[in-house]
């Protein structure tokens, strides 16, 4: 199984954001896309998820062309996105958010299995299941966002900036969770501004600048790459705890 973008271009109205993007994510990999703000990282995920249609190129998943397939069907095919900024349903309870994440399994035993797994991964969500999502702390909200995304039992998980706005300790925890999710058999495509975290977790990485992929290598090679070091890791970057 593989997710493959081939020459994908995409934009909003007349503004083209992505130019000829080709990348692939193979089974059980953690692949990361790093790049500065506005490079188009989120747009790549939005295009894969069916929220936007590419103006050129194709997206293939499991041998099927999925570009142009509506967003809800992408989820049914096994690709789930955890959107940037979490995008929880703030006035609904933790449990209701999870209900919605597991919508495709509603009223089936798979729903309960997914719920057990999510609570195993995030015991705190179980403790808070009747609390309003909007009242959770930032870290808890990110955990709920991930848990909600896992409720659909995806084969591939798209993660948009999971570290954004979180304290270093919690970022580290999120990193561990991402590794655990992969160990359980889910493939991960991660988009991050926090290149340090992302490259440490990843098997392979792509560097995106102004809508084009400028570099592609194994995670550890990218970490040693002088250009990446200079632009994205920064000499003064403080290592988290």
């Amino acid at each position, binding site marked *: 199984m593989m997710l493959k973008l081939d020459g994908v271009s995409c934009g909003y109205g007349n503004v083209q954001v992505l130019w000829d993007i080709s990348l692939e994510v193979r089974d059980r990999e953690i692949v990361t896309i790093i790049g500065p703000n506005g490079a188009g990282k989120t747009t790549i995920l939005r295009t894969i998820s069916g*929220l936007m249609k590419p103006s050129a190129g194709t997206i293939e998943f499991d041998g099927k062309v999925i570009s142009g397939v*509506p967003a809800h069907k992408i*989820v049914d095919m096994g690709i789930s996105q955890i959107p940037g900024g979490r*995008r929880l349903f*703030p006035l609904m309870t933790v449990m*209701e958010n999870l*209900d*919605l994440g597991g*919508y495709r399994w509603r009223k089936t035993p798979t729903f309960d299995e997914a719920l057990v797994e999510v609570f195993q991964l995030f015991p705190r969500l179980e403790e808070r299941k009747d609390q309003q999502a909007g009242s959770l702390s930032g870290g808890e909200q990110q955990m709920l966002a991930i848990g909600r995304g896992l409720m*659909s039992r995806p084969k591939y998980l798209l993660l948009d900036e999971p570290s954004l706005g979180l304290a270093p300790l919690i970022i580290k925890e999120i990193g561990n969770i991402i590794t655990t999710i992969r160990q359980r058999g889910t493939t991960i495509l991660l988009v991050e501004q926090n290149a340090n975290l992302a490259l440490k977790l990843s098997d392979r990485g792509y560097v995106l600048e102004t809508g084009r992929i400028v570099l592609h290598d194994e995670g550890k090679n990218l970490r040693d790459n002088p250009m990446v070091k200079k632009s994205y890791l920064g000499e003064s970057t403080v290592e988290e705890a």
Partner: protein
Amino acid sequence: MWEFLNYLMNGIVSGSAYVMVALGLTLIFGILEILHFAHGEVYMLGAYFAWTILRVYDVNYLLAVFLSMVIAAVLGVVMEFLCFRPLRGKPLFLPLISAVGLSFFFTDAARILWSPNPEAISTGFNRSIVHIGEFYISQQRILMFTVAVASIVLLYLFIQKTFMGKAMRAASMDLEATALMGINIDVVVSVTFALGSALAAASGALLGPIFVLVPHMGTLVGLKAFVCVILGGFGDVRGTILAGFLIGLTESLTVGYVDSQLKDASTFAVLILVLLVRPSGLFGTKAGKFY
């Protein structure tokens, strides 16, 4: 004392009718942010559908109300598909114009299909009056109130407890995130229009026997339903319910103790007063929709 009770009861009954119309508007606004100006016309059509069914098939009145709801639900889905769906994601004044156009279309269609002259629905319920002391109420009004309360409760349970209801609430908070949950937004929107239109039609079919049927009967009701939505805090279900009863009571007490000519004006006076004091509506929480 008896007089007051009568006005109070009339207010509650017409309030419940407004709530039924306004709930659909609230749900539609909550999800699509469309000001659905043809919703009052769906109320009007609901009354005419029931009238026609009774005329042609001579069935039980309650069955006619139910059938009218079903026809309106289908109409709501078709209307959204043809007039709003193609405009989704476009600037919001476009669906607004579409809604205004629909409203004229329905009013004129009713004029042609039925007649510009007033028609009456007669049911047994309207003639039989229940009274306790000097307190009078027709069975029709009791029926109106009962059906309204039942549908409000059912709707509330539906959006709180069922998966589809949760999807509707989610869609009112974040349409795109809802799609990312694997939920088909188009289905959620269709269900919302079906439910909203059925409620408005039921309200028309139930109030029809109390008033008369004219093609423009929905215009004012639609506007008043909008007042409820605004007072309720734009997309807030509980707020809309309270606002509906508030408007009903204001009108009937104005008729009783001020001047019956000021009935309609009183609604809008309340709107202006409330907006001066609380611009986000009586129960609005700004962020909050559907709660």
